[in-house]
């Protein structure tokens, strides 16, 4: 089956994500307009207009009502998914890098960069509180002796947060204590992306050091390493099979089997230039990739792949 090509953005993609049901696909690029699409046919529903800079990160809550985006214009905005209206705006001092919704969909976490002499900080905010009223939790990352946060996500039951850092460090933060509880340094290069599997038990990190690594999300215990010859920009865990998809490098993305061995068994070409972001459909039967070329490609797995099962 031919992939569906979405002429998504004028500039390169930064992040794509499916909503929980998988019917919607959100995409963000270096242009100012994060968009939402029907994943089934690639029809654009609309875009969230308002940002004044590249959008680095987006996320959608579990019931697809709110959508958060972090932008280089030093703002984090929460949007109404259905209407595209801006619900909240959080103004920061420096460009915002990451944002993510909590499991319950009420909290967001966002971080900003440590530029212009300002420290890298992480904020936790309840979106139900209006930005100028409620005081959000604020953690100074730089003060903790850590490099800037390049990726982040919420852990199980909203009890902790995992952040990936510029120097390849992986840090787990306890939300109640507001302090780091675990620090690992699994990568030699920047951790570009962090993703979990569907039930939030595993965590996959993708790094510039050409490896992707699988961890247990609670203990940060290292489980598997996937090595390629090119930098990995994004990695996703299949909900259907024990597989991961890695994207990055120059022109190829690779599909790798997680559980058994760290061996590559398929390679999908298509994008012109590196793949920046990858997301697997929640049903595991298709996945989308966003590239440097500004296109989003939705690939459906062949029947061969779905039937393929290694028996030992």
């Amino acid at each position, binding site marked *: 089956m031919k992939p569906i090509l979405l002429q998504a953005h004028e500039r390169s993609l930064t992040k794509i994500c499916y909503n929980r049901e998988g019917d919607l696909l959100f995409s963000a690029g270096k242009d100012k307009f994060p968009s939402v699409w029907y994943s089934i*046919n690639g029809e654009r529903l609309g875009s969230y207009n308002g940002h004044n800079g590249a959008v680095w990160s987006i996320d959608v809550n579990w019931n697809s009502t709110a959508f958060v985006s972090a932008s280089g214009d030093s703002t984090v905005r929460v949007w109404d998914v259905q209407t595209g209206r801006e619900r909240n705006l959080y103004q920061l001092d420096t460009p915002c890098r990451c944002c993510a919704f909590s499991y319950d*969909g009420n909290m967001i976490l966002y971080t900003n960069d440590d530029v212009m002499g300002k420290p890298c900080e992480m904020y936790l905010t309840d979106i139900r509180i209006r930005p100028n009223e409620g005081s959000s939790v604020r953690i100074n990352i730089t003060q903790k002796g850590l490099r800037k946060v390049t990726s982040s996500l919420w852990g199980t039951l909203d009890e902790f947060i995992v952040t990936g850092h510029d120097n390849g460090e992986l840090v787990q933060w306890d939300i109640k204590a507001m302090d780091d509880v675990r620090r690992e340094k699994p990568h030699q290069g920047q951790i570009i992306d962090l993703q979990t599997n569907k039930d939030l038990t595993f965590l996959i990190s993708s790094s510039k050091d050409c490896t992707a690594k699988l961890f247990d999300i609670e203990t940060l215990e290292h489980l598997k390493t996937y090595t390629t010859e090119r930098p990995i920009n994004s990695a996703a865990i299949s909900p259907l099979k024990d597989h991961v998809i890695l994207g990055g490098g120059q022109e190829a993305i690779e599909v790798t089997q997680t559980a058994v061995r760290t061996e590559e068994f398929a390679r999908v070409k298509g994008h012109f230039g590196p793949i920046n972001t990858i997301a697997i459909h929640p049903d595991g039967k298709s996945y989308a990739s966003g590239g440097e070329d500004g296109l989003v490609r939705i690939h459906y797995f062949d029947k061969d792949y779905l039937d393929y099962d290694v028996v030992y």
Partner: protein
Amino acid sequence: MINKLENLPNEIFLMIYSHMTLFEIIESFCLLNKRLNNIIYFKFLMNKNGIVINKRCLSFNKCHSIITSKINDLSFILNCIQSIYIDGIYVNCSDIISEWIFHSKILRFINLKKVILRKCYLTENLIENLSLLIEYQLTELVLTFDNDVFKSYQCQRLLRIIRHKQRSNLMLMFEEFIRKLFSNKCHLTSLELDISNDDTCVNIHKFLSLSSNINSDVIHNEIVTHCKSLRYLKIDLIDGSFLENLIEHVPNLEILSVQFKYTLMEKLSDEPQMKRFTSGIISWYTKTFSYSITKKTNIMPEQPFDNDSTGEQQQQQQQHADQSNNEFDDNSPANNNEQSGDEEEEEDDDDDDENQTKGDEDEGKEEVEPTPDFSDEDYGADFPDDVLCPELMAERPKEHESLNNIIVVDNLPKVDQVKLEKLKAVISKVYSKFGVCRNEYYPLDEEGKTKGYGFFEFQNEQMAIEAVKQTDGYRLDKNHTFSVNLMSDFDRLTQVPPEPIDTGNLFSWLAEPDAVDQFAVQSDDPKKTTIYSNALSQPIVLEDRNKWTENNFVWSPKGTYLASFHEQGIAFWGGKEFRQVQRFAHRGVNYIDFSPGERYLVTISPRPNNPEAFIIWDIITGQKKRSFPLDQHSSQGPSYFKWSFQDQYFAKQGPDGIYMYDRESFQLVDKKPFKIPSLADFQWSPTDNRLAYWTAEDGNVPARLVLAEVNGVRLEEVRSKTLFNVIDCKLCWQKRGDYLVVKVDRYTKKSGEKNNPKYSGLIYNFEIFHMREKNVPLDTLEVKEMIQSFAIEPVGHKLVVITGENLRTNVTFYKMGQGQKSGKIEPLKVMTQPVTTSIWAPNGQYVVLAAMKTGQSAGGQLIFVDANDMSIMSKQEHPDLSDVEWDPTGRYVTSYVTLWNAKRDHSFKIWTFQGNLVFEKSVERLVAFHWRPRPPSLLTEDMIREVRRNRTVWTPKLDQRDRILRTGESAKQQEQRRKQLDEFQRLKEKNVKRLAIQKQQRAQLRGGVDTDSLFEQQASNVGEEVVEFLIKTEEVEYKP
């Protein structure tokens, strides 16, 4: 009596006087008359003006009476006395001195300069007098404080006569005296002081140290002064501290001689003392002009003090100063001696004698060096004769090392003792003609029979050599033929050349049960050659070596050897472990060429003026068979020599024909080349002793295409064709030798100069010889388009021709007719595919059409075609493709990209014959990839046909085998994978449990909605929904 005495001459008187003491002289002769007085005076003058008062002298009373009675009259005598020696062991010295020397405090001896005082009791009077003397009179003083000195004092103490304070008075006086000795009140120039018998209760040694004077207020207040006059000081002492204190007071001291009673170390084992001493010594050293320290061990308490000569000796022995000081030292004792009195000298002599003998003894002990003893009669017996008389020994008869004059005769008849004599006679008769047989020896066995051989010694080597030459192979009788050798050759003959290295079975790789093929891959930088076995699941590395070869490797045509290139030559590797099998030394070798039967190797080192540019080797033995120089005019290349199919002939293209050589003699067949004018090229048939050649156009003579057969020494033409307007021909034999296909390029128009002709209107056609048909029929196939490449089916009758330019190419399959149909070449199928080359499987039927990388395009297309029905089985890609190679069995094809073709992504891919990718591997800087060839099958045509017919029987078995191999490919790896999988499953199960526990919490977080199963519910509950999309809008005119 007097008168008579007076008659005696003066000399007699002097002699008499010399046997008398002073007092005796005075008592006896003094004041008798003027002459005698003069003689006495002279006597004293001669004796260096010294008087000795000792035990031999009169008692005090006597002395006193004499002196006192006569002394006033004796002033002339007393005036001349400069030195007094008092050995007061029995004399109360103090009294004498006080009474006698000082007569009521008036000095009697006005010229007195030296006082020697020994063994006198210490009294206050004495000290007082001495103090005066040293202050005003004396220049030299010798004081010895032995045990006797303090005897009176000790007696007094014992008798408790003196009280504590009294003792102090005496001691204080004494102490003051000692201090005075080293003060400015003393005008001595020379002082000898012996305090080595210092009493513990007196402790002279401490007199000079300030700290000891606690009891004395007098001394305490005294200003420290110096004895500036003192030049010579000799001290016998116990403790160095005295010296240390002394040094401050004698700034002008020039010579110091110190004698320690005990050894330095023994006394100074006490550390603080030692320290004090050393520091003192250093200060001494800096201050004094010269000093000497004598360690005198075992000194006798009674030994006379004034042993000047020994002192001098020791002084000299222990001299630490430089030469000037030495001189000074030498002088000073002499001065002393001069100043000493005669009597003293006498005494000295006695003492000296004693000391001298003692010293001699000591010397004897010291110098126990072994003196050479020449009384040894055995001297020289150790030397060998040839050292003693080399001239004679040179002529001594020597043992003859060489065995050249001995011969060994084998195959002699074995005889017993009885017949031995007869045998000896016969044999000696045989050998007597060569010269005198000096010695003969027939070894015997236990039974006394000869062993069948003997040794004969000739007079010289020549005779022996001659005997060997003439009798080797000599027939004694019909059963016995001599085998004669020189004894010296024995070693050579017994030394059997070492067995060739056991390389194991060179064909072991063919015994691989699943007939798995091997291939070798070479990468550059690092130079690494890897040999893989193409096992079913994936290739397995058999051997991996760095720098195995310097630039290239070549498999031998049957795959037995792997040849590696080195600067020194070629090395062959083979066997199970790829050990070195053979070496061919040929410097600078660039190319090698095997004969098809793998019997001979041609190594080519194309350096100019190399007389051995080509060397032909026998591969098995490694022997060089023949070498050829480089022909300047002929083409160079790996196929310079072309071998016929069974290695029988090898031929090269010469200037005027074919030079064919025989493999037996390596000489030209018929001793001359086959003359073929304007020969362009020739090729051997791979299966017959036939060769095809063509001659180029030469002026009006047209080109000819000839098929010739080697018949004995002649080359017979079998078939020929004359061709016109030929530019070039390409001769191509089918692998089985069934067909010879010649591609002929012809022109319709020729222009330009002769040497650089330009052709236009090119026509291409094929001339096809049907070798297996009668009379070798010839077909011609015309092709309109430009031919890029063509390939004949190795086993079969098909021909693939690729025509066209760049990648706009057509692939045409032809069938070359056979049997009755010969003469007809029918095109089977034309495909329009962008490929450049076609590569047939080794056994035909399958062909890979490949687009190699060319200047215009990257190529990389691989089309797998089944030539049976001309169907395309699959199309694959390998960008930047360099070459395609079939494995020798035709089961797999490899495509690879080498360093020469592409900058990066060097790799090889292994496909099945159907075009399914089996394996791919990227090899950085890949240089070469080659399958290991296999020898031709030993099965006959019928057997192969039989196998084919029974394929249905074989297939299930083989499939099963494959399955087993596939599944059990590597049990270990599989086990590992299963383990990994199990581990991961356990992890997942754990997570599932965790999730189940947390389910409630999760639902709570999401407002009571169970999102875990929501999706599944949706998937099952939601029915089909029709979604309409507006794709295209079109305005349609409404027509009611």
